[in-house]
């Protein structure tokens, strides 16, 4: 009796210590949710389609051509090239954790991943294809036909191709970043400098836009709140008008979707035109044009160190 009581007390103690250790922190940033449970047949189809160049008009580009999972879900170029080898208007955003963004594309012109797939496939600059031809190509492949039949009652259709790709992209989450572990209660995982970096990140107000589960990706913001970055950068194009091109609202000029900062260390160059080649440069621009502040000495470095803790894992490997 006494021993069982002791055991119970011990168990309670252990339980308390575990919960104390694992108590998630209440922060404006949130850790990634678990990967959703989706039909593996559809996800598998999505994977194949993602790497299939038959989606582009001339069989040159697949999704994976620009969204390289070994390069943070994007590529390392300022502009990816379209089907015709010509550079695109904007820098390629990462596909990783894209399902957590509230809208897709820099200008947020679509709400869902399915629509994003559609836009890219029919875009005259990117894949320049039509669904008619894509469906025909996929339906001509007996392997695809069989797998589509297994995953969808109506087999190969444009919506099903979009759905499979979107489902695959929904599995492309990068959990277990050191910062997520920190948020989940493992506060020892960050170095003091990284923690200072996070404190600076909050103090300077980066957190005003880069917050939530995706550390960004949940609001629009004008690029150049405290100064005209695009004019200072020079060579403005239509793409620099951002969301204005979608809504036509003067208020939306040079407004862009705030990008996610997850895996940000892996996705250089930065901004919608890839105009910042390094993370340090990007942080400096943000200080000047968004926050309207001069960073204290070393604070940029600290923030950059913090940003590097946002790199998560894909297929068990750090990105």
């Amino acid at each position, binding site marked *: 009796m006494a021993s069982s009581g002791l055991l119970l007390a011990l168990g309670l103690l252990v339980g308390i210590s575990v919960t104390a250790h694992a108590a998630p922190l209440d922060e404006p940033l949130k850790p990634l949710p678990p990967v959703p449970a989706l039909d593996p047949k559809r996800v598998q189809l999505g994977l194949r389609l993602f790497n299939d160049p038959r989606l582009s008009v001339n069989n040159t580009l697949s999704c994976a051509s620009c969204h390289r999972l070994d390069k943070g879900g994007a590529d390392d170029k300022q502009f990816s090239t379209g089907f015709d080898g010509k550079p695109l208007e904007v820098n390629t955003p990462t596909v990783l954790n894209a399902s957590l963004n509230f809208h897709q594309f820099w200008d947020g012109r679509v709400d869902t991943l399915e629509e994003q797939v559609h836009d890219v496939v029919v875009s005259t600059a990117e894949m320049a294809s039509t669904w008619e031809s894509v469906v025909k190509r996929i339906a001509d492949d007996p392997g695809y036909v069989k797998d589509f039949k297994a995953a969808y009652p109506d087999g190969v259709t444009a919506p099903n191709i979009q759905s499979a790709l979107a489902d695959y992209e929904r599995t492309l989450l990068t959990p277990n970043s050191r910062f997520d572990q920190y948020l989940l209660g493992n506060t020892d995982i960050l170095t003091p400098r990284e923690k200072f970096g996070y404190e600076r990140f909050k103090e300077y107000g980066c957190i005003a836009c880069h917050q939530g*589960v995706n550390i960004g990706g*949940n609001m629009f913001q004008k690029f150049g709140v405290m100064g005209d970055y695009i004019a200072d950068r020079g060579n403005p194009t239509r793409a620099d008008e951002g969301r204005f091109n979608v809504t036509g609202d003067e208020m939306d000029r040079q407004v862009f979707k705030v990008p996610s900062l997850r895996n940000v260390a892996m996705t250089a160059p930065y901004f919608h035109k890839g105009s910042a080649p390094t993370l340090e440069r990007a942080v400096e621009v943000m200080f000047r044009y968004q926050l309207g*502040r001069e960073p204290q000495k070393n604070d940029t470095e600290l923030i950059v160190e913090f940003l590097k803790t946002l790199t998560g894992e894909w297929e068990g490997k750090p990105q």
Partner: protein
Amino acid sequence: MTALRRLGLAFIGLLLASVLLFMYVNSGAQQAASYIESRDLIRLLKQQDAIWDNEVLKSRIALSHNYDPLVSPLHEMARLWQRLDAIESEPGRHAPSLWENQRDEYLKAIKEKTRLVEQFKSRNSVLRNSLAFLPTVEDDIQGQFAQLSDADKLQLQAVAVDTYDLLLSSMEFAQLTTREIAAEVLLGLNRMDVNKERLPKELRDSVDILSRHIALILREQPRVNELLAGIEAVPVSDHLDGITSLLEKDQAIAAGKYQRNHIYLLVFATVLALILIWLAIRLMRSFGEIKRVNNALQTANDVLEQRVEERTRQLKDTQSELMDTARQAGMAEIATNVLHNVGNVLNSVNISADLVSRKLRSSKAIGLSKAMQLINEHPDDLGHFLTDDPKGKLLPGYLNQLVEAIAVEQQGLIDELAQLSKSVDHIKDIVSTQQSYAGANSLLEPLVVSELLEDALRMNSGALTRHHVTVIKEYGEVPRIMGDKHRLLLILINLISNAKYAMAGVSNHARNMTLRAEVVNGDTLQISVKDEGEGIPEENMTRIFAHGFTTRKEGHGFGLHSCALAAIEMNGHLTAHSEGPGKGATFELQLPLKLAEGEQ
């Protein structure tokens, strides 16, 4: 006729089924269920809308720095709306264009609200940032002021105060966005522009930063407030209420329809019930008819049975009459036997009487009268006569002889009369024996078998003696039985009589008759009468018990037949055995052994 009737029935059945189907299709249960679901969806939509508003306000007062909650209600609302839309867009649910109008209004409102919320998010975030930054930058400036030399400090005191005032009015502006305060902040900013020319380089930069942020607050705060007012003004909730009232109105109509259908259904059910009752009555009538026919059949059956019973009773009566006849015949036989026996004895009585009369007629007493005549002729000289007369001298001797002869004669008469008396006794005996059985019925009574056999023998004794039949008695250990004395005696007298007749022609050997009584197998009484007479030929064996069969001139052919019947009446049977003509015969009576009370 029947084909027409069947067709009519099929038509009525079809009519009822189609009415039922029509009512089922028209029943408003589906409508009611989806109405409840729609109302629930609207409630959830309003809830999400309220959550959304709440999150907007939380961001407005910087209670929350996470904008995810401003996104997620929209997703949830889109999902809920999709479900509601799927239900309510079904054709026939609402009057045309009413639902479409409400739907478009709602979608427009949601789109507008989404747009405003997006703008609010962008602007509020930078506004909050700048507001949060104001104390820091002010501290920074005041710190730099503090580091100045005292002379400069004194000179720039007014600037420091102005900066401070500007900060305060900016913060006030953030709380109370009025035109006056805006003008004040603008004035402060302009003064700052003028003032900063007098400031050292580093301080000027800080003041620049401050004025940029205040300018931002001055610009963004009214916009954020406008956006908030706009968000509040977007009539999402009102449109949801509009949809609710539309649903309610249509539901009321549907409920009315439902009520009407309910009444129709009630009427229909009543009709059905009436039909059922009618059918039940018809069924009951049919049952009554069937019952009536059944009863008639039953009665007929009973009458038939009664008749059969009557016939059976008649047959039984006939049978018993036959039995009585047979019994009377048997009794006649017995009477014949008895009279025969009596006749036999009477014969000897007759002979004795004849003998006595003959002896009396030729009696020696006549000689006595002759002797007396001689005496009377000589009344005077009697002595002389007796001594002298030749005739008289003979007379005493004669008289002596006569006395002797008369004595002998007397003796003979006495003997003969004794025999006569005996014969009369015998007759009396026979008659009394017969009388003792005369009133016997067929009731069972305790009997001793040996006594029964003796009685039977006694009734035949005269004949048996006359025919010199020797009776050998082999009586086994037979207990007292319960039996029908009359029948048993009938059988035995007949069998004994038959045995006696069978041996009538026997002259070459003794006439032996064997009577045997025994119990066989513990449950059967067996009485046998065996003679050593003429026997029964093979061909007669099967016929001897038949009515009217006899081998004797004076026979009726009824004796054995009645015996066999009597045996059967006692649940027994009578059998005959014979080795053949001249070898004698055995008759066996077998009866179930019924022990009298007190016997083992």
